[in-house]
């Protein structure tokens, strides 16, 4: 099968009242490495899902090699030589690599001839640049290995136009270069076209020939990478030039150590140790950023701190005193936590916005009266106040919080955590994930303000750029332990990258 010429013209798609794509056009010539650039919510995932037959576009056409070709299902897309590697893995954890690869094969007969299939797989793997153990169960592999297998799977299925949706988000820089470099080689040999969804300019400049930009569901520009530079691309993506906010720098030097995590050990969901003795100190008036590829224990660390996971050994101390996630201690230590995916981890979807905002204070006056009665009017009033102060939309204190958009849920939870007067310790995990730029900026400002008022802030983020901008100190977490500490000024991306890759 030859590499197809793909053209999408005038694609529009809406979900309810949300217009995800508005008259977007895109062209991928055969044998090119094409980047699709845009911020969160720009519509990148939506358009490729239309190309892959997962969604049906409301308007617009798709042309393959010049012929009008409606793509109604993923099977049809695959038939045309299109393949996609998603952000979340499409490997089945409980099955082996071999079973996964075989299952992805179209035309699989009802009874599987394992001898023949295995021979075919081994023959294919001989020519591949990555080593994989066919008999390994997928849930024993690292994120990087899984990503490589995903790409191998597409090549095994003889995909000719490969769509990659943020493939390097779970890879270290070295691994990303390895993968993208290999693919670049295949493109150079004319065996493949690639459509790469990314928000990393570095990758676009290093590997891609062409780039198309999307902003808020609309076409925002296109061109050859040779003709564009990162700041021009940023402008096209964002719509206006972004000004680096210098007021991020703290006004005073950090104070004494407030939060101390000592030799923390804990196990993950699979029973294996996820935290191998984490040691960390955060001082008053500083933001410590934890950088690292997701899956190295960051989530488990925040869960232990938040009381959602038990620790096997180790100690968390606040101002020298042992800290346990009980209500009394949280109040005493003025300890606030903002976990990631707030609807899943910090809120009760079916309770109202006001009620959710009262989780921290409902058992204190004025919300508790006579020692056991709940004052519901007071809670509703609290909701109104916080909704106004933190601009939560829609401003309905009695609406179930599950009906709010992601950004507004995050705002509501932030309102809850940051509105109680003095904050001594704040732990936040990926607070800006999936939010639009305005929301991101306002949350960054809140974090900085909290730090400036003397709080010890621990910020876990998968976005190194965010940490470089906000943090006073950056530590890298790999394999469940802190392996490097540095400051934004001294940060050496190569060294950080190596430490993120760990000792694998």
């Amino acid at each position, binding site marked *: 099968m030859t590499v197809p010429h793909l053209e999408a013209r005038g694609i529009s798609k809406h979900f309810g009242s949300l217009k995800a794509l508005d008259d977007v056009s895109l062209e991928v010539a055969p044998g090119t490495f094409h980047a699709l650039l845009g911020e969160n919510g720009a519509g990148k995932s939506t358009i490729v899902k239309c190309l892959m037959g997962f969604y049906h576009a409301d308007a617009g056409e798709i042309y393959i090699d010049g012929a009008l070709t409606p793509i109604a299902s993923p099977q049809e897309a695959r038939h045309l030589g299109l393949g996609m590697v998603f952000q979340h893995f499409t490997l089945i954890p409980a099955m082996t690599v071999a079973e996964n690869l075989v299952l992805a094969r179209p035309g699989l007969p009802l009874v599987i001839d394992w001898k023949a299939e295995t021979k075919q797989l081994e023959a294919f793997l001989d020519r591949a640049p990555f080593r994989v153990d066919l008999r390994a169960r997928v849930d024993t592999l690292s994120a990087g290995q899984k990503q490589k297998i995903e790409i191998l799977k597409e090549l095994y299925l003889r995909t000719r136009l490969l769509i990659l949706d943020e493939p390097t988000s779970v890879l270290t820089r070295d691994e990303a270069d390895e993968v993208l470099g290999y693919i670049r080689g295949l493109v150079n040999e004319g065996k493949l076209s690639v459509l790469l969804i990314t928000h990393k300019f570095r990758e676009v400049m290093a590997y891609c020939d062409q780039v198309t930009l999307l902003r808020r569901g609309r076409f925002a520009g296109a061109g050859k990478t040779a003709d564009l530079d990162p700041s021009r691309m940023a402008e096209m993506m964002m719509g206006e030039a972004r000004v680096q906010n210098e007021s991020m720098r703290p006004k005073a030097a950090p104070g004494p150590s407030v939060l101390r995590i000592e030799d923390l050990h804990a196990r993950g969901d699979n029973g294996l140790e996820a935290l191998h003795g984490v040691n960390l100190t955060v001082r008053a008036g500083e933001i410590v950023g934890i950088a690292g590829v997701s899956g190295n224990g960051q989530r488990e660390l925040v869960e232990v701190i938040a*009381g959602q996971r038990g620790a096997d050994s180790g100690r968390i101390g606040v101002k020298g005193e042992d800290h346990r996630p009980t*209500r009394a201690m949280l109040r005493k230590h003025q300890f606030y936590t903002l*976990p990631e995916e707030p*609807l899943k981890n910090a809120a009760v979807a*079916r*309770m109202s916005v006001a009620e959710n905002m009262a989780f921290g204070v409902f058992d204190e006056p004025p919300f508790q009266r006579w020692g056991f009665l*709940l004052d519901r009017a007071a809670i509703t009033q609290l909701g109104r106040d916080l909704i106004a102060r933190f601009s939560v939309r829609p401003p309905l204190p009695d609406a179930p919080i*599950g*009906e709010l958009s992601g950004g507004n849920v995050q705002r509501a939870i932030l309102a809850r955590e940051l509105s109680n007067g003095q904050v001594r310790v704040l732990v936040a995990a990926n607070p800006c994930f999936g939010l639009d730029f305005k929301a991101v900026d306002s949350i960054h400002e809140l974090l900085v303000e909290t730090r400036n008022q003397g709080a010890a802030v621990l910020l876990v983020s998968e976005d190194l750029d965010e940490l470089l901008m906000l943090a006073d100190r950056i530590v890298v977490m790999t394999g469940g332990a802190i392996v490097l500490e540095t400051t934004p000024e001294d940060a050496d991306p190569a060294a950080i990258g190596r430490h993120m890759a760990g000792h694998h």
Partner: protein
Amino acid sequence: MKKAEAVLVPLGAMVAGLLVFGLFCAALGVNPFLVYASIYKAGFGSWYSWQNTLVRASPLLLGALCTAIPARAGIIVIGNEGAIIVGGLGAIWAGLATPSLPPFLALTVMTFAAMLCGGLWIAAEVALQHYRGVSAVISGLLLNYLAIALMNQLIEGPLRDPSSFNSPASYPLAPSHRLGSFAGTHVHHGLIFGVAACLLAWFLIDRTTFGFAMKIGGGNVRAAQLAGLPVGRLVVIAGLLGGACAGIAGMVEVAAVHGRANESLNAGYGYSGILVAFLSRQNPLVIVLVSLLTGGLLASGGMLQRAHDLPDATIAVLQGILFLFILLSDTFYGRFNFTRTKTPEARAAHANAA
């Protein structure tokens, strides 16, 4: 809107279920309208029928709370039957051990014994799920069978009254220890326990900070942990309270209805209680209404047999149909509300709002 929905949706499910039941009857060659008429007559047609209905409603009120209270704390309990039995056993033991106490004290002692036994029984199931991951549905049903075995063992063994010939039974309670009825009716005072328990349960869940904390734990354990709430303790207390209600139902069975512990302690009220709880969407105030309606349905079993030659399992079929409909109604809940965002999560969230 939410309050209206809380009553309309269960009623709608019951109506729809009755309609399908009518079709079922028609398919069997019985005129459904005559069946409806019989149900109405037997349940609500006369003062006598009303009394039957009230008598049937009182164990339902208490049995339903055994599911509803832990459900608000996040755990579905279906071991009501076992808790009723153990509660009854506790009550009879306490009653037989204190023959010389004056009536009021005797009743208090028996009630406490019943609450303790029933409460611990359900608390065990709930604790097993929370601390050990053992599904409360499975442990509940297993413990039901164990409770029946225990009951049989005791009333054929240590508690056995040698003068009871037909079926094994325990010694009878002293007449002063019996629970009386309202004057001029055969509705026993157990109804008071039921209604009071529902009111107290509603107050606890909706108006106290303890209830609020319980709802958080029941809504999202992680959010509760984040807020520093002692989820395990909340859940176990909910189990104790629910089990205590079921225990009281057992006590009422023993003290008001039979005067002794025998086989009929295992009467299936527990399972109907589960249905009532689900029909009421775990809301104690709605339980009062639904218990009444369900009591009426249950009271009509005999009439259906006499008038239409339908076996008493017919009511069981009706209960099954109602159960299926209340489940399906979850998908309709929230459609009457006018909200701006209609994401699937929001729909589901709204559907589960209580």
